[in-house]
């Protein structure tokens, strides 16, 4: 990682496209950085198609076959499917992710619209309150949250996994930002045509903020797909378990690691979010850049 420290040649040179020493250095450093981030993933994907014996054999000496599948087999995936019932966990995770997306979208877009386009006493106080909740470290309050969920009699339910995250300050922030950009004249025109607040929201404004909605959908999906600690606490019925917990269970320390199986599980747990990200990268970058705005 130390290689990254040498890249501060100054932003002014970014406009030069001639093949200067700086550009050559950028290529070299760029290649190293790319490998630092790509190699672990390549190794994981390739190894998921190998038997554990072949994985071990290909590690010494390090060669191109360490990172490429050889004698490819789907055996690891088959074992995940039959022995580890990964299909059940994938389905559970998809159900939870879909529910979380729907509830988050409805609840947060309504709130964001009110915080952006309504005039009422306490509006700015409320928005500041929502922003402050950004600062509450979520992992740190999981245990009291568990106590709340337990008292509500919701442990071991799907809704216990996603409802606590549905009132997302981050989603409200992104959506409010988008509503703010809708011109006042558009709102006026709709009002003059007799639109009610709900019609104004649903028929006029929501269609205008589709990119922001897409950003929220994607970030929520990745969040839900990757969530681990909270489901670990709130679900102990094995048939309701989510995919990340199943993956963590394949790699219990102390046991002799079954490399092939572990890599196949990690691959399955990674690909959906990674593919969504690679296909729709723009929205992610927008979402993260927006976090920067609040700072």
């Amino acid at each position, binding site marked *: 990682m130390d290689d990254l420290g040498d890249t501060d040649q100054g932003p002014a040179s970014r406009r030069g496209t001639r093949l200067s020493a700086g550009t050559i250095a950028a290529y070299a450093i760029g290649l190293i950085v790319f490998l630092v981030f790509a190699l672990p993933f390549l190794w994981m994907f390739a190894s998921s198609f190998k038997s554990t014996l072949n994985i071990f054999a290909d590690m010494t000496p390090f060669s191109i076959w360490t990172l490429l599948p050889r004698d490819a087999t789907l055996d690891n995936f088959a074992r995940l499917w039959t022995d580890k019932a990964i299909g059940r966990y994938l389905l559970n995770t998809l159900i939870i992710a879909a529910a979380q997306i729907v509830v988050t979208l409805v609840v947060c877009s309504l709130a964001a619209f009110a915080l952006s386009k309504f005039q009422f006493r306490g509006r700015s106080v409320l928005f500041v309150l929502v922003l402050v909740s950004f600062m509450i470290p979520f992992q740190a309050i999981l245990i009291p949250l568990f*106590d709340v969920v337990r008292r509500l009699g919701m442990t071991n339910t799907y809704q216990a996994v996603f409802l606590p995250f549905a009132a997302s300050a981050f989603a409200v922030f992104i959506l409010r930002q988008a509503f703010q950009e809708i011109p006042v004249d558009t709102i006026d025109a709709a009002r003059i045509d007799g639109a009610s607040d709900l019609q104004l929201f649903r028929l006029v404004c929501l269609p205008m903020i589709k990119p922001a909605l897409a950003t929220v959908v994607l970030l929520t999906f990745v969040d839900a797909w990757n969530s681990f600690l909270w489901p670990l606490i709130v679900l102990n019925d094995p048939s309701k378990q989510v995919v990340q917990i199943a993956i963590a269970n394949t790699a219990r320390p102390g046991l002799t690691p079954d490399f092939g199986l572990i890599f196949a599980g990690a691959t399955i747990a990674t690909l959906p979010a990674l593919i969504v990200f690679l296909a729709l990268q723009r929205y992610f970058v927008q979402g993260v850049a927006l976090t920067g705005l609040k*700072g």
Partner: protein
Amino acid sequence: VRISKNVTGRPRRGVGRVTPWRSVVLFLTPFLLLFVVFQVWPLAVAVRNSTLDYNLLRPNSATDVGFDNYIRAISDPAFLNSIWVTTVFTVAQVLIGVPAALGLAMLVQRQFRGRYGVRTAAFSPTVTSTVVISVLWLMMFNPTYGLLNSILRFFGLPGFEYTLNESQALPSLVIMSVWQQVGFAMILYLGGLQGIPAVLEEAAAVDGANARQRFWFVTRPLLNRTTLLVVVVMTIFSYQTFTPAFVMTKGGPNGVTDFVVYLIYRVAIIGSDMGYASTLSVILVAFLLGLSFIQFRFLRARWEY
């Protein structure tokens, strides 16, 4: 109920009319309900439970013990160790991660073919679950069959024991964590860099500043706000680290990777001690809120002159 005054006192076009309460309630109730039940209430419960002797194995016999749990916390070697471990982990991660993220952002800002590939690769760990990253790096760290030692052997270098070694375990997790989070920070820095007008650097270049000087005296100070944000976000993230300890080390060897949240998890879920776990949660929340407040004050003082 009729509200006739514009609350902000400022005349506004279009939306200037005060919205009827019926609409406000309709739009805000679902959010507020979830917000109060799942975010405000747990905070209150945490504070309440923190003064209780409250064990899930006998939930009906909770008794108020005042500040006993807090006194127990500040003299609990396990808790003090976990604070120390988590702090070292966080400081190391910020010290390495922040310059690395800035370097990455400046690299992918340059015009060269493949910079989008580099950006995408660096950001990929951010959309990968911490579980997968922990599992993957556990395999990478395997002394015999792991990728890291395999590459080191290829270059004729001696390998390491990584997570199995008492003095290498925490540094290993720092490296993994920087690898995971640096892409997110890079995107924040890219946003910051785009906000800097090119004329400033050009003016400095005309005045004879070299690339290093332009970076240090023009670009870097203008990025202070972004750096503040990156430091705060990284600090808060890394104090909440749980998964690497759970998946890779179980807090070991000998407690050197026993992060605070992993300790809280054990106290609550394995020990069923909800009272004491809540006390530790309250301390952690107060500590993090205080820390981000201080970081904001301290770092802000350096750019407001």
